[in-house]
């Protein structure tokens, strides 16, 4: 009698926990589905609005005219990539050095803590504030005006924390047995880092760098005051006179990224230029998605090359 009662109670409990489990699964699935739906519909909407424009003759190959309301976005596309490359050229060595120092050299204690806090703070600074600082420091103080280099340095300031973190993580994830093996054969810490740890961490580093490139590529706020809101009307890609304001490679000329271009034209509210805004947005989004895909492919391919065969 008492026995069957406990069984009944147990069954009720099992029943209850199974029901809770079902409800939880249902709710979580619904949340994920909602998020997915929002992302997918946003991407589809932007593509639907903008992809047509990408195939308009000249949109990707011509300079913009009439303050961006006519013509193409070739220069903005070029400037975006050029800014990205400049940013990586500055930020990658610094981040690599910082990460190697923090992981391999810094003694446990205050130095590491302070550095980590500084990096965290830098990464949480609003990009508009970084842009203002860049403007005051480089454009005004250094007299560089609106220039690609000011923009690249502003971008560097929030790219460094991201990259340092990624590289730090990648180095920490290399099994310590690799480090031990090197040191036990009489190699120095530096040789160990350079020849074993960095190569072993390379897949993760590449993935991180390309992902961060996606973020830098889409940045607008930090560039408004630094690289400026317009590209020169005419750019000469063949010119090697780096001081000339029309030389495409001149880092002291102003430039405009795709994201800033969207901000500018959309902000001006010219209804006849809406198709350019959507086209630019679609292009920007496709580029960033490509960065994400590319980072995954590159990381995987590198990892395979290193472990397989």
């Amino acid at each position: 009698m008492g026995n069957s009662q406990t069984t009944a109670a147990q069954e009720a409990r099992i029943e209850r926990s199974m029901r809770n489990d079902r409800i939880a699964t249902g709710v979580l699935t619904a949340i994920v589905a909602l998020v997915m739906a929002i992302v997918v519909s946003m991407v589809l909407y932007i593509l639907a609005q903008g992809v047509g424009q990408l195939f308009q003759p000249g949109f990707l190959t011509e300079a913009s005219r009439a303050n961006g309301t006519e013509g193409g976005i070739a220069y903005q596309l070029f400037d975006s990539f050029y800014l990205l490359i400049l940013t990586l050229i500055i930020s990658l060595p610094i981040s690599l050095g910082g990460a190697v120092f923090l992981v391999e050299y810094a003694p446990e204690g205050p130095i590491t803590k302070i550095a980590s806090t500084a990096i965290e703070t830098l990464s949480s600074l609003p990009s508009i504030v970084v842009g203002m600082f860049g403007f005051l420091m480089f454009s005004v103080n250094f007299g560089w005006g609106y220039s690609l280099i000011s923009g690249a340095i502003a971008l560097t300031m929030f790219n460094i924390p991201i990259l340092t973190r990624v590289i730090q993580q990648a180095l920490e994830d290399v099994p310590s047995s690799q480090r031990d093996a090197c040191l036990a054969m009489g190699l120095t810490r530096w040789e160990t880092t350079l020849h074993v740890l960095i190569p072993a961490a390379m897949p993760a580093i590449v993935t991180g760098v390309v992902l961060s490139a996606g973020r830098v590529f889409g940045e607008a706020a930090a560039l408004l005051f630094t690289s400026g809101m317009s590209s020169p009307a005419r750019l000469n890609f063949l010119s090697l006179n780096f001081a000339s304001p029309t030389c495409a490679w001149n880092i002291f000329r102003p430039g405009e990224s795709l994201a800033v271009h969207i901000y500018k034209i959309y902000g001006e509210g010219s209804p006849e230029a809406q198709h350019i805004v959507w086209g630019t947005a679609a292009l920007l989004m496709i580029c960033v998605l490509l960065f994400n895909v590319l980072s995954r492919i590159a990381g995987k391919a590198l990892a395979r090359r290193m472990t397989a065969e």
Partner: protein
Amino acid sequence: MTTETDQFLKSVDSSERGPRVTGVAISDEVMLETKDVNVYYGDHHALHDTSLAFHKDEITALIGPSGCGKSTFLRSLNLMNREIKGCRVTGEILYDGHNINTKTENLYELRKSIGMVFQQPNPFHKSIRENITFAPKRHGVRDKAVLDQMVEESLRGAALWDEVKDKLDKSAFALSGGQQQRLCIARTLAMKPDVILFDEPCSALDPISTLAIEDLMLSLAKDRAIIIVTHNMEQASRVSNRTAFFYMGDMVEYGETEQIFQRPKDKRLNDYLTGMFS
């Protein structure tokens, strides 16, 4: 006549297989010695006053329950403890007639002479050949012929040559665990060490690979001192000449392997051997 043949066979045998004699001491030439070595991790005093001598041509086994300080002691011998933040080693470690536990000791030269093989096979993400030539190249060997010879010699020394001679440029990760471990030994041999430290080198391997590594250790002991940490009591008695028993940071008993296993003096050692704790 027969004694001469015997003598000859014996010399061939021992040159190829190292000391056939295990279980008892066979040499009194000390290669490496510690005097009152203490190790601290921060405030934690992990190893107390350990004095031991390691002899040329011999294999010494370090045994004891988990956490008793075997690895800690082993890592002091090639100063690897210096790579651990907060770790401090006091006392004397005598190698080649001088104390190496000093600030001025050249770590990088020292570790060529005192090699180390780890618990998990840890080849580099490089080809088999590069795994061996990597460190010698960094130490300044440039001549390709010399390097090639080094690769062959080391791989032969580690009884791996026949298995890999046709795929030297393949990734080391394509090898089996046992082969990887022998590659790690080969890579250590390329540095021509006088002493090789093994920290549980077989604990990640299958029984057959384990026997292969044991055979190898016996052959490597010639002209060297070998020190092996192991949890495998049969292994210790199969390969070693002398054994030291550690317990909770103390070196409790040291002697010829036969004596340690057959006639332990300390009660803790006796308990350990009879499986009272592990």
